[in-house]
């Protein structure tokens, strides 16, 4: 994987490498800038480039926090997650919904610092 310069002011650790499940998602809770917490879906695809992805866990189509529990599917060469409730596909790379342009999940920079998974969440 590419080496990302990690400065701890920008990046926050959220979990350990051992918490991740290969070729699947897990969910982590991070504190937002305003103090409100946020559910993040983390996907770990060994062998892919990049191999880590972070999206909002909230599925706006279903109205439930379930994105991390979706199955990872390659569609037309791009990695997506299929939301478990109504099966909309969201691109792991940028959170765009394949079926509906109007729907978009936020995506976040995510990287490994040794065995620690770190994420950068935008302000505001």
């Amino acid at each position, binding site marked *: 994987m590419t080496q990302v310069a990690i400065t701890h002011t920008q990046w926050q650790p959220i979990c350990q490498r051992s918490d991740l499940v290969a070729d699947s998602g897990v969910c982590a809770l991070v504190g937002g800038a305003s103090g409100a917490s946020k559910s993040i879906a983390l996907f770990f695809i060994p062998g892919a480039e990049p191999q880590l992805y972070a999206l909002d866990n909230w599925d706006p189509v279903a109205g*439930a926090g*379930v994105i991390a529990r979706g199955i990872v599917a390659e569609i037309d060469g791009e990695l997506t997650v299929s939301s478990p409730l109504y099966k909309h596909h969201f691109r792991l790379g940028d959170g765009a919904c394949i079926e509906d342009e109007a729907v978009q999940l936020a995506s976040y920079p995510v990287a490994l610092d040794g065995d620690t998974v770190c994420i950068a969440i935008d302000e505001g």
Partner: protein
Amino acid sequence: MIEPRVKQKLIVIGNGMVGHHFLEQLAARPEKELFDVTVFCAEPRPAYDRVHLSEYFAGRTIDDLAMGKVEQYRDWGFELLLNDTAVEIDRDKKTVTSASGTVKNYDRLVLATGSYPFVPPIPGHEHEKCFVYRTIEDLDAIRAASEGGTVGVVVGGGLLGLEAANALKELGLEAHVVEFAPGLMSVQLDGGGSELLKNKIEDLGVTVHTSTATELIEEVDGRLRMRFQGESKGERELLTDLIVFSAGIRPEDKLAKSAGLQLGERGGIAVDESCRTSDEYIFAIGECALYNNFVYGLVAPGYTMARTALAQLCGETSEVFTGADMSTKLKLLGVQVGSIGDAHGRAEGAAAITFVDEQSGVYKRMITDAEGKKLLGAVLVGDTDDYDQLLQYHLNDIDLPEHPEQLILPAADGAAPALGAGALPATATICSCHNVSKGQIVDAVAGGCCSLADVKDATKASTGCGGCAALLKNVVDEELAALGVEVNNHLCTHFPFTRQELFHIVQVEEIKTFDALLQKHGSGRGCEICKPTAASIFASLWNEHILKKPHVGLQDTNDTFMANMQKNGTYSVVPRVPGGEISPDKLIVLGQVAKKYNLYTKITGGQRVDLFGARLEQLPLIWGELIDAGFETGHAYGKSLRTVKSCVGSTWCRFGVQDSVKMALDIENRYKGLRSPHKIKMAVSGCTRECAEAQSKDVGVIATEKGWNLFVCGNGGMRPRHADLFATDIDDETLVKTIDRFLMFYVRTADKLQRTSVWLENLEGGLDYLREVIVDDKLGICDELEAQMANVVGTYQCEWKTAINDPEMVKRFRQFVNTDEPDEKIVFVEERGQPRPARNEEIVKIAEPA
């Protein structure tokens, strides 16, 4: 528009299948209002299915066989006089008089008096233990006479005689067939075919005496002794307890004769192509009628005559009857027999091609014209797979291929040369059950049907006996190809195989992980189609835990967490309750667990309890308690066996004939955990009342006095389908063995997410083929199927029990990997004393500060 006018008086004499068909067709037409209808019926009940009369002995009731209902006739406004034989027609006064003395006027009269069994005038034939085989009363009398007897004889080796012999066998008698001619079914079969049929039938325990004429029947010590003529081969006499005469039928034309209507030389009411008799006001239809010096003794031509007469009555004079094809395919005592056209090769210059396989008991003969260009007739015994194709050649006058013998020879590579659908004219009948022509199928495809299933839905083709499935697929594929539709049955873009092919690959190469499969046979990284399909195949074959490391990422929504995800992201939990039997203690545990975790409870349609609203992180805790109380996972989340529903059976129910609960328990415990292309539902009913609704299940079992009847491929839900009767009166062991084979064959060959009902409808050869594979072991794979099932049964584990004892697997059920906090976005409100997911507007309210 129909002008109101004085109604015509229409009398129909006879209420057999053809008479009933005539009236049923009339009732469906607007012209019904033009007639006052009276029906005379000599029998005590309205029309019933005489073609399947023998099934009366196999357990079908009078109600099952009934075609017409008294109430139905009342609704139609037709007067139905049961048990009242018409005895006189006065053509001058236009009246009909009945045995009870009723006199009715007619403007138009339809004779549908049918036929009567011919009884050869052998001295002694009037004995009270001599019967004929035509009505339900005849069958009741035969059954009564069979009690305490050991031997039964049928005189007549035609189609009906062999049916009767089977019936005697069903009644537990040692059955004999005595035939005057040198061969059985001499009308439909040639010498070779009838010889093979005789051998096969004798193998089944029916003794056949051909070239045997009965001289005398006399009573000896309460039994009957039949003496045969001197030149008869073999036995000179036979002792029996009863005799059934089935030596052919004769048109029932007495009434017509006494009314002075024109008859044929050897009987039969002469009709023209409008089905009119020599009296223009009187029609005759069915087996009593003689057209072109021929009596049509099959039901289909009778129906055609009925429709013709009706059309003529309604003024459609262009509708005519010009004869009918008498080709027939049937199963006699389990032996397949087919006869097409000129089976005896009587046409001038006719040439024959014959194939005989004495080893497996197959006889096939084609009759062609002198040039070998056209098919004039055919005889098939022991294997009628080629029947439909040959019939198409015959009916449509299609040129035979250069080497016509290939049509009946077993093909070297295992695939018979198929008749190109393109060779068939648009008028060719593809499905004879639903009378669907090639033209209708072509129209359906042109109208937007792009799959076999769509065409079946739209036209009903191949939804009857299924015999035309291969031909139908041919036509559909050809039409789709002509329209430029590419028929691609690849699983998905990652695997250029069907599910069946993939299953085979995984099995043969013993592939155990998705990565290995993808690397060797696929491309890319897989998707939500191929991943769960592969996971299901691995589970069916190797039965490893679905959450074992390499399989975790392959599971879809519900399998991923072994629970059913509900709309708010929480789960429902369904413990297994085999057969629906549950102790009070276990019920209490379910209640306690539901209360403790605040779960909404509901009884399912499969006789279990569903617990809703469990958060992800609660699942291992809930299952820990359930497993401690002795529960197991119910696989409500899996494409696997769901439930085996049962009625209470003979243990409690005063009607039950078998212990249906015990059987349901055994079956459910045997097949629980079996992963399959789609979910599987089963049921066991303890008697014919069918309280467990087994006929709407993939596998349905219904108790009989002698054992179990097995039904397969039923479905409820969106596309209901009645299950098909697959095996009758089988014992416990045979039942389980048959289900083993059936399920494994389905698991092996079905498409992804294809229920058994759709699978069967798409299976070439349909139910007959399925029976050949599962019961007759035509493919020689049954041992393997059973072994495979034994492996699945032997390696069963409760997935939840394994999971909660494995810390790595339990980790997977954390809501958040970095904190134990619950998901605050999951909110419940109370309704009718139980929790339910809060709606959006309710959540806002809760969030607002008071």
